[in-house]
Each structure stands twice: as structure tokens, then as C-alpha cells.
């Protein structure tokens, strides 16, 4: 009961602020609503007892990435309204993509309705007090079973970072 109240509370905040993020004209206001969305998602993680995901969502996305977003918005003065014309043609493509994704979700739900129980398959969830500490479990799977993909991903990110630095340098020289 309490769990679902918490879930719907955070889910409602997430959806409303996601919509507001898109509709606001002021870039800083959009960024603030994006932060609200991220925080609400973090709340959902916490409700699912994924406390490590909760805190890394806050540290990385809200404390790191979003602060940098706002930094860039202020630095290049994106809060002055931009010419909106350029993106007008994308509206129809966006609508198409949204419809496709929506249909996908609908099809999944339609074909899942015959499965007994809730309709969707949940690999039987453990009760909340029997869960292992989330941080340790995550570390075990990241550095145990999924070590190679993890390392590949980190090398990829490093390559991307070095590439970004190199490209930025070139532009200054030119």
C-alpha cells in the first residue's frame, strides 16, 4: 500500500515535470524540470530498494551532469530565446517516433495480457527485508560476471572523452 503510494507520487512528479521540461521556453526552467524528473526517478529507484542507483542518480545526474548543463546554459546565454524555426520540421518526425514507441508498448501489453497474474512477467521478486545489500551486489556483478563489458564500456567512454578534448583543442588553434 505505502509502496504504491510512494511509487505513484514519484511517477506523477516525474511525468508532470517531464512534460513541463519540454513545454517551457526558458532553458533554465527546462533544466530545473529535468532535474525534478531525475530526482523523482531517483525516488522510484529508492522505492524499489535500489539505493545505490538512487544515490548515483543524484550524484552523477543531478550533482554532476545537470549542474554542467546549467553552467553551459548560463555561459552561452541560451536563456535568450533561440530562433525556433529550425526545429519546426522535426515536429512531424518526433510525432511519428512517439506514435511508433507508443504502439510498441501497446503491442507488448496486448500480447502479455494472456499471461496469468498481473499480465507482465516478473521474475519472482524477493521480499524487501530479504534483499542483499544493493551496493555489494552491484559491485559483484559489475566486477565479476560482467567484467569484460564493463571494461569495454569504460574504455569507450575514455576514448570519447579524449576525442572531445582533441576536437576542442583543434578549434582553438584554427
Amino acid at each position, binding site marked *: 500500500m505505502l509502496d504504491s503510494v510512494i511509487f505513484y507520487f514519484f511517477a506523477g512528479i516525474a511525468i508532470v515535470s517531464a512534460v513541463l521540461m519540454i513545454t517551457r521556453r526558458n532553458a533554465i526552467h527546462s533544466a530545473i524540470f529535468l532535474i525534478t524528473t531525475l530526482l523523482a526517478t531517483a525516488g522510484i529507484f529508492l522505492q524499489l530498494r535500489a539505493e545505490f542507483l538512487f*544515490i548515483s542518480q543524484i550524484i552523477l545526474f543531478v*550533482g554532476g551532469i*545537470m549542474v554542467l548543463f546549467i553552467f553551459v546554459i548560463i555561459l552561452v546565454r541560451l536563456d535568450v530565446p533561440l530562433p525556433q524555426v529550425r526545429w519546426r520540421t522535426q515536429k512531424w518526425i518526433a510525432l511519428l517516433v512517439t506514435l511508433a514507441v507508443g504502439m510498441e508498448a501497446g503491442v507488448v501489453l496486448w500480447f502479455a495480457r494472456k499471461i496469468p497474474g498481473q499480465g507482465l512477467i516478473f521474475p519472482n521478486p524477493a521480499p524487501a527485508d530479504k534483499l542483499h*545489500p544493493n551496493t555489494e551486489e552491484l559491485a559483484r556483478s559489475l566486477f565479476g560476471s560482467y567484467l569484460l563489458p564493463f571494461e569495454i564500456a569504460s574504455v569507450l567512454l575514455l576514448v570519447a572523452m579524449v576525442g572531445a578534448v582533441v576536437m576542442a583543442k583543434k578549434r582553438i588553434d584554427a
Partner: protein
Amino acid sequence: MSPMLHSILAFVQAWWVELLCALLIVLVVPLIAVYIALVERKFMADVQARPDSTRVGPHSLLQQIPDALKLLFKEDLIPANADQFIFWFAPVLSMTAALTSMGAVAFGPWFQVARDINLGLLFAVGVSALRPLGIILGGWASNNHYPIIGALRSTAQLISYETTAGFALVSGFLLAGTLNVRAIVEIQRTDQAWFVFLAPVGFFIYLIASIVETNREPFDLPETKSELVAGSIAEYGGFRWLLYFLAEYANRIVVASVGTTLFLGGWLRPFPNVRWLIWLDAAPTLLLAAVGAYCVFRAGKQPAREQSLFMWAVALACFVVAAIFALAAPFGHLPFELMHNGLYGAFWLLLKVSAYIYIFTWLRFTLPRFRFDQLMRLGWHILIPLALINVVDVGIALALSSEFGLNRWLSMVITTVATLGAAMLLLHWNDKYADAASAGLLADSSVVEGTHAG
């Protein structure tokens, strides 16, 4: 009884200790913050060889209360072109983040709001990552150049040094093997060593990063008074300014308690396992009684009768607390163990946190301010690489002692020496780079003129 009321009652019954702790934090932390500010004023007066204010209460002990009231009753100004909502919201965000992160900090073994969350210290660190958001939004909403420059500076600074502090904390977490606050302290007891001795470089990096994160001099670039008026909070006055002020001091307390818990043994007495040092348990009583005696001594020298009366009251309070400690001392066993441990743990933790904050103040009035490019170079060219090397070295030391059976202290000494060698190398490279860079800066005379440290 309505079901609503019933469920609220059940909630209170289940969580009353946590609620009480949270209430205490919200009520007491502003008071502590205000008195830290008083200590700072006294220290500043002492360093500058001048008397501080002496009128409001003996030694102006009550000065901060009318100061706070003045701020409360000031006219509430919002600049006409400011973004009204964000201007209102930003200080609240700062304050909320600071107080929330205090929830995971344990002031003694039994005083902690979020008692047994596995996140522990990571929660405190993570939630205080929201603080730059309050500063940058406040600076932006003011719609003024100086606050915006201050906000940009503070964001760059906080992001860089949060990374540094994070890596420094990782070296401590590696030693502890857990994030849970109580487990971290217990491990320092059973290991018979504070982690500052096992990872000295990690603690040193954390100390520097925590000064930068709390915007203290010599790193107070976001609000350099001689350059930016007051930085990101220049447009704030009255109660909103007070919120920023309290958030900053609360954050200082959080940072100090995280450092204390992880590196300085938390609420453990110094040498908790040494039998013949058990007399240290009498230290709280003796210290408080000494403070009380000093107050009695000073009471006779006050210029006015009210002031000496107040001094007597302070002395009485000190004696009462000392008596409580003395009475609790013999109850170190089972039925009263919780009370005893809580009381003495809180004393030692607060003592260490105060020492930590005192170091902040000390540095503030000792060192001149850094230039912004120097600050950034210190962060990105020296501290972050050093923190990374330190994490790897602490890991190697742990592996040496657990896999190869090497003595723990020996392996720690070896890896610390390796880290220090790396630090020397980094400093050497940086010196070469800095010479070239400052040659470039000197060519640009406008930069040189802006470099005098306030």
C-alpha cells in the same frame, strides 16, 4: 479514532527516535552554525590584533542572536528583473540539501536519523552534491553580472573538487569495506587504527577538497569580496541571505563529520583499545569542569553585573553537563550501555568535528587567496591524479596484506611512499607548466592587475 489518525500514530510510534533526531538537527544546527560564526569572529579579531565586539553579553556571547534577529526583520527585497520563483527557491534548495545530508551523519553511536541504511556516508556526500545547484540557480536568478560570474566560478570549483573528494573518500571506503557509518567506525576500533594513519594521503586530499567545497578561504573564489562583491549571493539580503549562510555552515559541519567518521575514528575515544589509557574517559568531565571554572574566574572581571550573572549561568551549565558525564561514567555496562556510549561518543565526535572546523578557520586567516586558474590547476593537474594514484595504491596495499600476508603497516608505508613520490613528480611537472603559463599571463597585463588576493 479515524484510520488516518491511527496510521499517523503508528508511524510516530515506529519512528519516534528518528523523528526526534531529525527535529534536534533542524533546531540545533542553526544555533551551532551561528556560534561557529562567533568563534570565527573572535579568531579573526585575534589574528588581526584588535578587540572584537564586547558589549552584547560577556565577551559578546549573545551578539549572534540580535544579528540573526536583525536579518529576520530586514526588508525582503527581490530585484525587479530577477526570476521571482527561482530567486525564492534557490536558498531553500541549498538549506534543504545541507540539512538532509546531515541525516546520514551519525553524531555518536545512537544519534543518527537514517540509522541502518547501507548507503551511509555516500548519502551525505550525494545529497550535498545538490548544493552547487542552489548556488548557481541563485546566481542566475539574480540577473546581475557579479552573481552570475560567482555562480559560474562556484560551479566549476565545486564540480572539480567533488571529484577529488570522492576519490579521496574511495580510499577510505576501500579500507573500511563498507559504506555503513556504524560499521566504518567499528572497523576502525577492531583494526586498532584510524584510517588517517592507514591512508594519510587520502585524508590530506579530502581535507583540501572539503575546504574548497565549502568555499572557505583560501579557496573562496565564488564570493571574493574584493572582486565580485559577494559572488553568487550578492543580491540576497535578510532572511534569504541567512538561509545561504546557514546552509554553508551546515555543509561545513557535514563535511567535517564525514571526514571525521571515515578518517578520524568517528565517535571513538583516542586509543579505545589501550587499557592504561582508560583515564581518557574522564576527559569530557574534566574538560567541561575546567571550562566552567574558567567561566567562574572570568565572571568576577566583567564590567557589568548582568554580564557576570550571565557568566555564572554559563559556568553552571558547564558544571551540570560535567556532572551528567561524571554520573554516566560508571554505567558503561549493559542496561545503561546505550546511554553511556551515546553520551561519550557524541562528546568525542563533536570534539573532533570542532577541531576540523577550527582548522578551516585557522587556514582562512593564515593563507592568501588563490587565483582561479591556480585553483583549477591544483585540482585537475595535481589533486585528481594524485587521488587516483592513491586509490590504486591503497588497493595494492590491501592486496599485499591480504593476499601475500605482508604486515599491514609495512605495506601501507610502502604504498604511501609510492604515492608521495607520485605527488613529487606531479608537482615537478606542474612547476614546469606553471612557469610557461605565468609567462603567458604576464604578457596579458589585465590579468595581472586582477590577481591581488583580498
